[in-house]
C-alpha cells in the first residue's frame, strides 16, 4: 500500500476558514500533491469535527465535493483512531472494495468552538458516572499516568520537560509550526502548574488545522507525480477506555500495536530512522518510547534528556514539532505526524530533514492511553 499524496493546511489560528472548509482545503492540497482529480477518489475517510460536527461527517464532505465514493466512513475520535483508519482503508483497497482513498481531517479548536462546545468537551472526558463528577481536566487525567511513572521508575519533571524542549527545537526549524520560540527545561518547569506534575508547557497546543493523504495500492505508485511512501507495517492495541479501568498505568497497549506493526514489516525498533510519536502531553511520549521498544522501561526520560530524540540523535522524533509545538487541532492531531513522516521519507523536509531517512514509525494514541495504532512507513516497497 502506498501514500501517493500528502499535504497540510495552514495551522494555528485560522479564523477565516470553518472546520468544514479546512477539511476541504486539506483535501484539495493532497489531491493536487497526488496529481489526481476529485473524481478519481472512490474512498473517503474523515474524522468528525468538534466545532462543526455532522451526524454523517464523511458523507457531508463527499457531498460538499460532489464525489460519490464506494467507501465512505468518518472516525468519531482522533489519536490512535486516525492511524486505525489508515489501516482499515488500506485493507479496503487490498480487498478490492475501492482503489483510491482520500483521508482528510480538520478541526478548529482554537477559534471555532462555542463556549457550550468547549464545556461539553471537558465534561465528555472520563466515565460519566464514575470519573467525570470528580472534576479532572484532560491534563489531570494524564497527570495520573505521569505520577505513576514517576513513582514506579523515578522519572522526573525535568525529563518530561525535555520532551517539550526537544519538540520545540524541531519546530524552530519548521516555518509551518505554531510555536517556534526556543524553550528550556526551566521554562517548562516555571510555566503554570495545571495538574501536578504537569505544567502548561507539558501540554499540547490548541489549534485550527487540517491534513490529508491519498492512499492507493503500491502497484499504482508509479502513476503519481511525487515519491510514494509505502506502508510496511500496521498494528493496533486497545486496553481500556477509562483510566480507572486501565490494566496498567505505566505500560500501554503501544506495546502490542508496536509489536504487531514491527512483525508485519519484518523490522524492529533499531531499524527506525525517524519517529513521530503522539505527544498530547510530555509523559505520554516517555511511555510510548518505552513500549515501542526504543528504550527499556523506565529509561525514556534519561534517553530524551540526553538528546536521544534530537535531529542528530539516535532517534529523531517529532521532527515537525509535534502537537506540543507544531499544532493540535483535536481529532486530526495525529495526521500531521503522518504527513511529516511522508515529508521526511520524500527527503523534502529542508532544515529539519533527517539524513538518509529510509524507515519512519508513526504512533497515535487516544482516550487516556486507551487506543493505540502504529504505522511503519518506508521509501521502498518491502
Amino acid at each position, binding site marked *: 500500500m502506498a501514500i501517493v499524496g500528502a499535504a497540510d493546511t495552514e495551522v494555528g489560528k485560522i479564523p477565516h476558514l470553518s472546520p468544514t472548509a479546512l477539511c476541504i482545503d486539506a483535501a484539495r492540497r493532497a489531491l493536487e500533491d497526488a496529481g489526481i482529480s476529485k473524481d478519481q477518489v472512490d474512498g473517503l475517510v474523515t474524522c468528525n469535527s468538534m466545532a462543526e460536527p455532522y451526524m454523517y461527517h464523511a458523507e457531508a464532505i463527499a457531498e460538499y465535493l460532489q464525489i460519490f465514493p464506494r467507501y465512505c466512513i468518518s472516525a468519531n475520535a482522533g489519536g490512535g483512531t486516525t492511524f486505525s483508519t489508515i489501516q482499515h482503508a488500506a485493507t479496503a483497497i487490498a480487498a478490492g472494495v475501492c482503489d483510491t482513498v482520500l483521508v482528510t481531517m480538520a478541526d478548529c479548536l482554537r477559534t471555532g468552538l462555542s463556549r457550550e462546545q468547549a464545556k461539553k468537551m*471537558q465534561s465528555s472526558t472520563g466515565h460519566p458516572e464514575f470519573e467525570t*463528577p*470528580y472534576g479532572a481536566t484532560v491534563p*489531570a487525567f494524564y497527570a495520573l499516568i505521569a505520577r505513576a511513572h514517576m*513513582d514506579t521508575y523515578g522519572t522526573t519533571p525535568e525529563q518530561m520537560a525535555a520532551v517539550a524542549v526537544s519538540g520545540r527545537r524541531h519546530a524552530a526549524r519548521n516555518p509551518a509550526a505554531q510555536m517556534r520560540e526556543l524553550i528550556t527545561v526551566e521554562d517548562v518547569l516555571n510555566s503554570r502548574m495545571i495538574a501536578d506534575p*504537569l505544567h502548561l508547557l507539558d501540554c499540547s497546543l490548541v489549534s485550527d488545522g487540517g491534513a490529508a493523504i491519498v492512499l492507493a495500492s503500491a502497484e499504482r505508485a508509479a502513476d503519481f507525480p511525487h515519491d510514494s511512501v509505502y506502508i510496511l507495517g500496521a498494528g493496533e492495541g486497545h486496553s481500556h477506555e477509562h483510566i480507572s479501568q486501565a490494566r496498567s498505568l505505566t505500560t500501554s497497549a503501544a506495546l502490542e500495536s508496536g509489536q504487531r506493526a514491527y512483525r508485519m514489516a519484518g523490522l524492529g525498533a533499531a531499524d527506525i530512522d525517524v519517529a513521530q510519536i503522539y505527544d498530547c502531553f510530555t509523559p505520554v511520549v516517555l511511555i510510548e518510547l518505552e513500549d515501542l521498544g526504543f528504550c527499556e522501561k523506565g529509561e525514556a526520560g534519561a534517553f530524551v534528556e540526553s538528546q536521544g530524540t534530537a535531529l542528530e540523535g539516535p532517534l529523531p522524533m517529532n521532527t515537525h514539532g509535534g502537537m506540543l509545538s507544531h499544532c493540535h487541532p483535536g481529532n486530526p492531531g495525529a495526521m500531521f505526524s503522518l504527513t511529516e513522516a511522508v515529508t521526511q521519507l520524500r527527503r523534502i523536509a529542508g532544515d529539519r530533514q533527517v539524513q538518509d531517512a529510509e524507515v519512519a514509525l508513526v504512533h497515535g494514541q487516544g482516550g487516556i492511553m486507551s487506543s493505540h495504532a502504529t504505522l511503519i512507513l518506508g521509501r521502498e516497497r518491502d
Partner: protein
Amino acid sequence: MTDHSGKFLPRPRPETAAWWQSCREHKLNIQRCSGCGAFQFYPRIVCSSCMSGKVEWVQSAGRGKVVTFTICRLPVAEAYTADLPYVVALIRLEEGPTMMSNIGECEPESVAIGMPVEVTFQKWSDDITIPQFLPALAS
C-alpha cells in the same frame, strides 16, 4: 454547605441505580461474581472475568490505598472553582477493584502514592450522594 449543583452530576442508569441507592445509604458497594468469586467495580450486568450473569452486591470495607493522584490547579468547570486546589486520585480498594475519587480533608500536598484512605459520602443533590475519600485514621 458547599453548592455542588453546577458540577457534572452523574445520571444513574438501570444497572447502576441500586449502586447509587447504596451511596445514599452511605454504603460503598462493589460486585462479586458468584461463579468465579472475582470482585469488580464499576457495576456491570456480567462478571468481566468469566461472563457469568450471577453478580451480587457486597459492601466494600471502604478502605484502600492511593495508586496515583494529581492536584488540579485549574477547575474543569466553574462549579469546581471553590474546591481548588483539589486532589483527583485512583484508589485501589482492599477487595481489589480500583476507582476514581477525590481525596479531601487534608492538605493536597500531603497526599502520596500508597497512602491509606477511607471512604466518606458527600450529598450533591437529592438523588446523588457521591463517594469521596479521606486519609485513613491510623489504626
